[in-house]
C-alpha cells in the first residue's frame, strides 16, 4: 500500500459551461435554484393534454422529451415575461371553465331553462341487427323481382311448348318462302302485286305483317280444338284489296235500250264472302284473295282502257265497272268487275232474284281466257326473246330487232307495231264461241229435221280458242258403203269455211241460214249421187244427169237436179227430179208401152218400144226404210222380167 497512487476524483460537471476563457478556464453557469427549477418545469407542462396522453408521451422515451424541452426552452428564455406566465394563463382558463360549469350546473338545477337528460347508450348495441334485417329485406325484394321476371319468361315458354302454340318465327319463315317481305323500320311489309311477274299496274299491293296477340290465339285455339292451329301471324291487307273479286263475263242478246241493259247487268250476282269470313282467315288464303282482287282490278283497268282506245264500228261502252262490247250483231259481251269487300253488303237476295231472271249466265271459260291472256302479257313483259342486247333497251321483239338488218320499210314496221289488245282477243273468242254454238245448233236441228239421209257430225277434239272444226257425214242407213258425202266446216271467229266433198271451198258469214242452205244443198246432192251409185250397183245405166236443171220453177235456194236411169235391158226408165223446195220426185216409164194403140198417124207396131209417158211413183206409199232402199226395191222390181 506504500506505493499507492493518487487518483483524483472529480465530480461530473453538473452545471452548464457558460463560457471558456482564453486561458482555458471554464466559467460555469450558476446552478438553478429550486424555485427557478420549478418555474422552468412548470413552464413545460401542457395543460391541454389529458392524463393518459401525458403518460403515453412519457413512455415513449426521454429523448423526445428532451427535444421538446429544448424547443420549449426558447420561448422560456426568449420571453422576457414572467416565468409563471403560462401557468397563470392555464389556471385562468381552467377557472373560467369551472365557473362556466358552475353556472351551467346552477341553471340546470333550477330546471327552468335547461334540463339534463341521460343519453341512450343502447343504440350502439342494436345497430348490426337492424342493418342485417334491412339488407335481408332488400335482398329478398330484389330476388323477388328477379324471380318474377324469370317466371314470366318461363311461363310464356311453357305455354308455347305445352299448348302447342304456333311459333311466330316459323310462320314468318313460311310466309317469307311464299311472299315477298322486307323490313321497313319497325314493321314487316310485304308485297303481293304481280310486279315481279311482269305486271305494270300502278296500284300497289302492300300488306303488313304483325304478330297476333297471344290471347286471341288462345281464344281461337279453344274455339276449335280440332281444326287447324291458328297462325301466330296477322296479315293486314289494304281495304281496297279486301274481300273477293272476280271478272264476270256475260254474253247476252242486245237489250231494248241501254238503260235496262245496265240495270240488269249492274245486278251481277256478286260473289259471296269467302268461306269462314267471320273467323280469321289463314294468311295464305287472305293474301291469295287479295292478290286475286288486285289481278282482277288490273285486268279490268286494262280492258277498260282498251275499250276506250279502240275505235270499233259499234263503239264499246264503259259504264262504271262494266264494259259492253258488241260481239256479233244483236249479241253483246258484258265484262264486269265484281268486288265484294264485305263493307257494302247490299242485299244479296234481291241481286240473286234479278240475276236469275237474266238468262245469260256467267261464262267461266271466257273469264278463264281473260286471266290467261293477262298472264301471257305478264309473261311476255319479263321474258324477252333472245339474244339480249349487251347495251340498249330490252323489249323489242325479235322481228323488230331483225327489222334493221332486213331493211324493213315503214309499212312493215307499222304492221309490226300493231298488237292485238286483250279486248280484241276476248271479243274474238266470244265471237268464235257464238259461231260454234250456232253451227252446233244448226247441225243438230238439221239432223232432227232430216231423217232420211243421216247427218252425222263429229266435232274435232283439237281446237283453239278461236278455231274449231266439224266433220259432217251425210249417208243413208244401210248404204253408207255405197255412197257417203262428207264435208268439213272450219268454224272461225266471224266466218265459216266449208270444204266440200268435191274440193270446193266456200266461205260463209256468221248468218245461220247460209250454213243451213249449204247443208240442205249437200243433202240433195247426196241423194242424187247416191241414187246413181245404187243404180250402178243394180246394173242400171245412167242416161243423163244434171245437177243444175234449167227447167221448172225457180228455186229459192240452189237449183233443181235430176237424173235418168235405164234398166239393164233398157226397157224401163227411172227419172228422178230433186227440188230443194219440193223434195224428190220419181217417175218411171216402160219401153214397150202398154197403152200403145195404132193410130192413123203412128201405124207401125215398132213404135211401142219408144217408151211411154213418165208416171210418178208415190214414194211415201212404197215399202222401204229410206229413199235409197225404196229406189233399190223399185229398181229390182223394174228389172225383173214381167
Amino acid at each position, binding site marked *: 500500500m506504500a506505493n499507492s497512487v493518487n487518483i483524483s476524483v472529480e465530480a461530473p460537471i453538473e452545471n452548464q459551461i457558460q463560457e471558456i476563457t482564453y486561458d482555458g478556464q471554464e466559467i460555469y453557469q450558476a446552478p438553478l435554484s429550486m424555485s427557478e427549477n420549478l418555474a422552468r418545469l412548470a413552464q413545460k407542462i401542457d395543460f391541454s393534454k389529458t392524463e393518459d396522453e401525458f403518460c403515453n408521451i412519457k413512455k415513449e422515451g426521454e429523448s423526445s422529451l428532451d427535444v421538446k424541452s429544448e424547443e420549449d426552452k426558447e420561448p422560456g428564455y426568449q420571453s422576457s415575461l414572467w416565468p409563471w406566465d403560462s401557468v397563470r394563463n392555464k389556471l385562468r382558463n381552467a377557472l373560467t371553465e369551472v365557473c362556466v360549469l358552475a353556472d351551467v350546473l346552477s341553471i340546470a338545477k333550477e330546471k327552468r331553462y335547461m334540463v339534463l337528460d341521460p343519453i341512450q347508450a343502447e343504440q350502439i348495441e342494436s345497430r348490426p341487427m337492424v342493418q342485417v334485417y334491412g339488407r335481408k329485406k332488400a335482398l329478398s325484394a*330484389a330476388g323477388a323481382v*328477379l324471380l318474377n321476371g324469370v317466371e314470366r319468361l318461363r311461363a310464356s315458354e311453357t305455354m308455347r311448348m305445352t299448348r302447342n302454340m304456333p311459333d311466330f318465327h316459323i310462320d314468318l319463315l313460311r310466309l317469307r318462302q311464299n311472299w315477298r317481305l322486307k323490313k321497313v323500320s319497325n314493321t314487316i311489309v310485304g308485297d303481293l302485286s304481280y310486279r315481279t311477274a311482269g305486271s305494270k299496274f300502278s296500284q300497289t299491293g302492300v300488306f303488313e305483317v304483325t304478330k297476333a296477340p297471344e290471347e286471341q290465339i288462345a281464344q281461337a285455339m279453344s274455339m276449335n280444338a280440332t281444326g287447324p292451329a291458328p297462325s301466330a301471324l296477322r296479315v293486314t291487307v289494304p281495304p281496297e284489296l279486301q274481300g273477293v273479286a272476280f271478272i264476270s263475263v256475260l254474253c247476252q242478246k242486245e237489250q231494248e235500250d241501254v238503260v235496262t241493259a245496265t240495270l240488269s247487268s249492274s245486278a251481277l250476282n256478286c260473289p259471296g264472302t269467302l268461306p269462314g269470313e267471320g273467323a280469321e282467315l289463314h294468311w295464305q288464303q287472305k293474301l291469295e284473295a287479295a292478290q286475286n282482287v288486285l289481278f282482277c282490278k288490273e285486268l279490268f283497268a286494262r280492258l277498260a282502257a282498251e275499250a276506250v282506245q279502240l275505235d270499233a264500228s259499234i263503239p264499246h261502252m264503259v259504264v262504271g265497272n262494266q264494259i259492253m262490247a258488241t260481239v256479233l250483231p244483236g249479241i253483246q259481251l258484258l265484262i264486269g268487275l265484281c268486288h265484294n269487300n264485305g263493307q257494302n253488303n247490299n242485299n244479296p237476295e234481291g241481286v240473286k232474284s234479278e240475276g236469275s231472271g237474266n238468262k245469260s249466265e256467267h261464262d267461266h271459260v271466257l273469264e278463264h281466257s281473260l286471266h290467261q291472256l293477262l298472264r301471257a302479257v305478264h309473261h311476255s313483259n319479263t321474258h324477252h326473246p333472245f339474244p339480249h342486247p349487251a347495251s340498249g333497251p330490252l323489249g323489242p321483239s325479235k322481228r323488230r330487232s331483225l327489222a334493221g338488218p332486213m331493211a324493213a320499210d315503214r309499212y312493215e314496221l307499222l304492221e309490226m307495231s300493231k298488237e292485238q289488245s286483250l279486248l280484241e282477243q276476248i271479243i274474238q273468242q266470244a265471237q268464235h264461241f257464238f259461231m260454234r254454238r250456232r253451227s252446233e245448233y244448226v247441225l243438230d236441228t238439221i239432223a232432227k229435221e232430216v231423217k232420211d239421209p243421216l247427218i252425222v257430225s263429229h266435232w274435232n277434239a283439237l281446237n283453239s280458242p278461236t278455231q274449231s272444226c266439224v266433220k259432217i257425214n251425210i249417208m243413208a242407213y244401210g248404204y253408207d258403203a255405197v255412197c257417203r258425202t262428207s264435208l268439213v266446216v272450219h268454224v272461225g271467229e266471224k266466218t265459216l269455211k266449208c270444204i266440200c266433198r268435191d274440193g270446193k271451198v266456200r266461205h260463209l258469214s256468221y248468218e245461220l241460214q247460209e250454213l243451213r242452205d249449204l247443208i240442205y244443198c249437200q243433202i240433195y246432192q247426196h241423194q242424187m249421187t247416191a241414187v246413181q251409185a245404187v243404180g250402178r250397183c243394180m246394173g242400171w245405166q245412167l242416161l243423163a244427169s244434171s245437177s243444175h236443171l234449167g227447167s221448172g220453177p225457180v228455186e229459192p235456194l240452189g237449183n233443181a237436179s235430176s237424173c235418168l236411169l235405164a234398166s239393164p235391158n233398157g226397157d224401163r226408165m227411172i227419172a228422178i227430179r230433186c227440188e230443194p223446195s219440193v223434195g224428190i220426185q220419181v217417175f218411171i216409164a216402160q219401153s214397150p208401152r202398154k197403152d200403145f194403140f195404132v193410130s192413123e198417124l203412128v201405124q207401125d207396131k215398132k213404135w211401142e218400144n219408144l217408151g211411154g209417158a213418165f208416171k210418178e211413183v208415190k214414194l211415201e206409199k212404197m215399202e222401204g226404210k229410206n229413199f235409197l232402199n225404196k229406189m233399190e226395191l223399185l229398181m229390182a222390181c223394174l228389172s225383173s222380167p214381167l
Partner: protein
Amino acid sequence: MHRNLPQNKEALLKSYTTRLKEDVKSMLENFEEIIKLAKGENDSQLNRMTQIEQDTFEMQVRAANIVRAGESLMKLVSDIKQYLILNDFPSVNEAITQNSKLFRTKQQECDQKLMSLRDDIAADLYDLEDEYFTSIYK
C-alpha cells in the same frame, strides 16, 4: 361469309353485337352492385334507416335492370331470327326453286291427265255422236 353488305345492314349487325354486349354487361354490373350493397361497407352521412331504405330501393331497381336486360336479350334473339328470316336470300331462292319445281311437276301431271282425259272423251264422243245421229231418237 362476309360479303359486301350494304352500309346500313352492316350497321344493323354491329348494333346487334353491341346490344348483346351491353345487355350482358348490364346484367353483370347490376349483380355486382347488388352484392356490394349487401356487404354494406359504405358509410354515409345518412341516417341508418334512410340508408337501409335507399339500399332496398336500389337493389330492387338493379334487379329490375337485370330482368330488363334478360328480356332485352330475348328481344335480341327474336330480332336476329327475324333478320335472318327476312334476309336469308339463299334459302328463299331455294324455297322458290323448290316451289316452282313442285308446281311444274304438278302442271305436267295435270296436263298429262287432261290430255289422256281429252283423248278418252274425244274417242267416246265420236262413238256417241255416231250413235246419236244414226238413231231414230234425236
